[in-house]
């Protein structure tokens, strides 16, 4: 038996072939994403949902109308394209002039709504869809049995990818598209119907995702979750390939599939992480990706996210607000389940920590769950195995957040905007997969039966009043720290950096150092929140480190008001309460939360507290 590095050649070839097949999906999906980003500057998080819609469309066509797979290959992408047209016309168009991160958040909300609805209608279990008989069966190779359908997938994806690349790079239409997106005004002056081209581009991009969905239907589950499982990996492919590069995403998609296949042979546990490791390495060495050209970020005319707030409330109102919150927290346990309140405080602190970064530094971190969850795991471990004092456990969580923050920050800070968000996401995914594999985290089971312990050796935190007091203390101290950081000389410099980074640099400030410091502080407090949560629920689990948790905290902050002190607290309260109150309904919460997300991005970018502040400001201006 021939072996290559200790593995039988047959096994290797088989996995490479499977890798190539997976790569076909990655390539097709990332192609659509790259087209949309390259042309529209939109990070289409809803791409996974479009893929899912394509698969479901094929399923509908077969089960409702008896229309076969072959027709579905054409009809389903068209259906998805129509959905894309509606989305672009009604929502994306409105945020095109803003910071790209709003587009990112908007499509995230859309993904939640679409997937939530389908989950509601069909459950997560997946619908059956048979392989068409013409493509059934397989070829007996010496090293494996190769299903014909999977060969078909590779062929179709190669053809489509090549065709798309040709159209965009080598034809008139493609040239028009490229012109329209490089300089809309000029193109319009030359008679190009730019809005139409933009709509068509988005529709075309998502149609590619829909096609991938049809291809996937017979072999993977036709399930509402099929997109969200893939989308993060596809992002990574696009970023590695070069965010605007069509060729880059195609090549990287196939390459990644093969690399994953090889990793599965030699080091299976790492196969989920390998793309993220590659992504971080590539972004460090070639920031624009393997094939990308860096877009000119210096002249970004749109106001940075978080800069929409006015200078913030003065000390008097801040004191009133703080007192109000503390009073409410003291009174509330009589009316509301205390564990719920404690959960709320933990998430409020988490959101407030996140807000430091986005509201005051202008950086959207999409991996904050890594700090929160790691803090939870370490605190849980410290309590359960080392039997540390609960305060020390929370501090351990804080320290964990800080250290991870330093690591992440050192790697991510050099970039900004969407690249920063993507790096933090990739790094957080690595933390997720490490948490999944590491023995001490208990994998899917989590660390359970975490003892709350005796505070200072005398106060038993099993006693609900004592625990509540402890959590309140952590919350108040955490918020106070954040307040101080924002209202400090350091905080002033941060504000300046956010307002005009180039000017801050020209005044001699090493802005990277300042951003890194803020990042570490933010991560540390997120770790504190996670550690406290672990003690409250006596559990640390994988949910705490998922990207959905990172998305949660973005939503809370956006809804409450980016850049305000009270905003994240209000946002956390609203989101956690909504999730609790709506839990009794049959209707899925994700849909409602996603809808609120969309509404916030489109209409209430200032968030609740921001709108209130604006209203007061207007009142005082009127009365002056």
């Amino acid at each position, binding site marked *: 038996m021939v072996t290559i590095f200790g593995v039988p050649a047959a096994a290797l070839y088989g996995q490479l072939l499977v890798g190539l097949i997976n790569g076909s999906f990655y390539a097709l999906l990332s192609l659509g994403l790259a087209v949309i980003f390259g042309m529209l500057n939109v990070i289409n998080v809803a791409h996974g949902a479009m893929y899912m819609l394509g698969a479901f469309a094929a399923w509908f066509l077969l089960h409702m109308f008896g229309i076969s797979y072959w027709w579905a290959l054409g009809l389903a992408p068209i259906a998805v394209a129509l959905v894309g047209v509606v989305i672009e016309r009604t929502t994306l168009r409105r945020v095109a002039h803003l910071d790209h991160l709003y587009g990112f958040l908007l499509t995230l909300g859309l993904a939640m709504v679409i997937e939530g609805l389908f989950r509601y209608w069909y459950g997560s279990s997946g619908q059956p869809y048979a392989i068409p008989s013409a493509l059934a069966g397989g070829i007996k190779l010496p090293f494996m049995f190769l299903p014909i359908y999977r060969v078909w997938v590779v062929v179709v994806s190669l053809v489509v990818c090549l065709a798309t690349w040709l159209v965009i790079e080598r034809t008139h239409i493609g040239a028009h598209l490229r012109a329209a997106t490089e300089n809309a005004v000029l193109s319009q002056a030359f008679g190009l119907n730019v809005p139409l081209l933009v709509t068509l581009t988005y529709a075309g991009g998502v149609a590619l995702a829909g096609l991938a969905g049809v291809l996937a239907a017979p072999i993977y589950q036709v399930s509402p979750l099929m997109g969200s499982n893939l989308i993060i990996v596809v992002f990574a492919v696009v970023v590695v390939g070069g965010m605007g590069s069509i060729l880059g995403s195609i090549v990287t998609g196939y390459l990644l599939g093969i690399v994953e296949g090889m990793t599965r042979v030699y080091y299976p546990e790492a196969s989920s992480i390998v793309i993220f490791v590659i992504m971080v390495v590539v972004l460090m060495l070639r920031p624009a990706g393997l094939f990308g050209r860096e877009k000119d970020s210096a002249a970004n005319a749109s106001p940075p996210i978080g800069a929409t707030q006015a200078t913030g409330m003065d000390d008097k109102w801040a004191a009133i607000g703080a007192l109000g919150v503390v009073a409410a927290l003291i009174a509330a346990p009589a009316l509301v389940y205390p564990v719920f309140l404690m959960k709320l405080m933990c998430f409020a602190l988490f959101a407030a920590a996140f807000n430091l970064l986005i509201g005051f530094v202008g950086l959207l971190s999409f991996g904050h769950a890594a700090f929160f969850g790691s803090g939870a795991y370490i605190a849980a471990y410290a309590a359960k195995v080392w039997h540390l004092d609960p305060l020390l456990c929370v501090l351990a969580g804080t320290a964990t957040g800080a250290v991870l923050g330093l690591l992440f920050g050192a790697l991510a800070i050099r970039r900004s905007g969407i690249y920063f968000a993507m790096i933090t996401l990739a790094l957080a995914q690595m933390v997720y997969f490490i948490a999944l594999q590491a023995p001490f985290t208990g994998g899917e089971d989590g660390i359970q039966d975490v003892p709350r312990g005796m505070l200072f050796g005398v106060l038993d935190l099993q006693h609900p009043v004592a625990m509540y007091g402890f959590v309140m203390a952590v919350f108040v101290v955490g918020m106070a720290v954040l307040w101080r950081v924002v209202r400090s000389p350091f905080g002033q410099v941060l504000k300046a950096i956010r307002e005009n980074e180039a000017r801050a640099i020209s005044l001699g400030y090493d*802005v990277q150092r300042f951003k890194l410091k803020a990042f570490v502080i933010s991560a540390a407090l997120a770790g504190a929140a996670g550690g406290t949560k672990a003690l409250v629920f006596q559990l640390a689990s994988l949910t705490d480190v998922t990207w959905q948790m990172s998305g949660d905290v973005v939503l809370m902050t956006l809804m409450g008001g980016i850049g305000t002190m009270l905003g994240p607290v209000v946002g956390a309260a609203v989101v956690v309460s909504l999730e609790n109150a709506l839990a009794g309904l049959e209707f899925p919460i994700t849909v409602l939360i996603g809808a609120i997300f969309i509404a916030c991005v489109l209409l209430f970018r200032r968030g609740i507290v921001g709108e209130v502040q604006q209203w007061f400001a207007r009142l005082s201006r009127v009365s002056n």
Partner: protein
Amino acid sequence: MPVSGLSSMRGNPAGDERGDAPAVMLKATSLTKRFGGFTALDRFDLSVRQGAIHALIGPNGAGKTTAFNLLTKFHEPSEGHIVFDGEDVTALRPAAVSRKGLVRSFQISATFLQLTVLENVRIALQRRAGLADQFWRSDRVLTTLDARARALLADVNLDGFAGRLAVDLSYGRRRALELATTIALDPKMLLLDEPMAGLGHEDIQAIVALVRKVAVGRTVLMVEHNLSVVSDLCDTITVLQHGKVIAEGGYAAIAGDARVREAYLGTEAA
């Protein structure tokens, strides 16, 4: 390259007191910048004497902004060296260059819009006062900088606007504010990127007066399109075209230079 001795007309103390040739504050040697196949700046040499008010002019696309960005390290040169006040700064990052005393302004006036005028100046003062890094202290400690900040504002005639948000100022006043924040660092040399851009006639007069005032005891290099301002303010002028220096000297010499006239042919000379 002809150098005209105009410094004595403006009363440059450094040059006069020393009695010998005034020191070179900023020296660029063979600075080159290539973007892919396109060469924006080709072996650019520049010598700015200490105390001079030196202008860099040229038609559009000549490479002035590129030169500026290279000198301040906002872009990396493909080739060449930069020596500032006797020190090779070619490898330094832009913030470090600024800390050495070479501070720039921006073509589109760069102020911190959502901060007040006073806060704008204080930001500039914070770093040297050692009040930038502490995140544990209250920002009330910054009031120790207020006196100095107000003095700077008075210098640029903005003392009445201390409490206003920068975004609420007129463009001309924002330019003045930018100048104030630049001076706050007490730089050895200022690089002004088109300081008159976007200003109306009255504002131009005001800014010209300010520049003249702040140039005392300092060196200035400015990129500028407005040739009447250049003739008014500057003692040395370097002319760029297609990334290369085509002439250097006083205004009269430059205006009479055939190559310069050719370069500007078709452009409206002021």
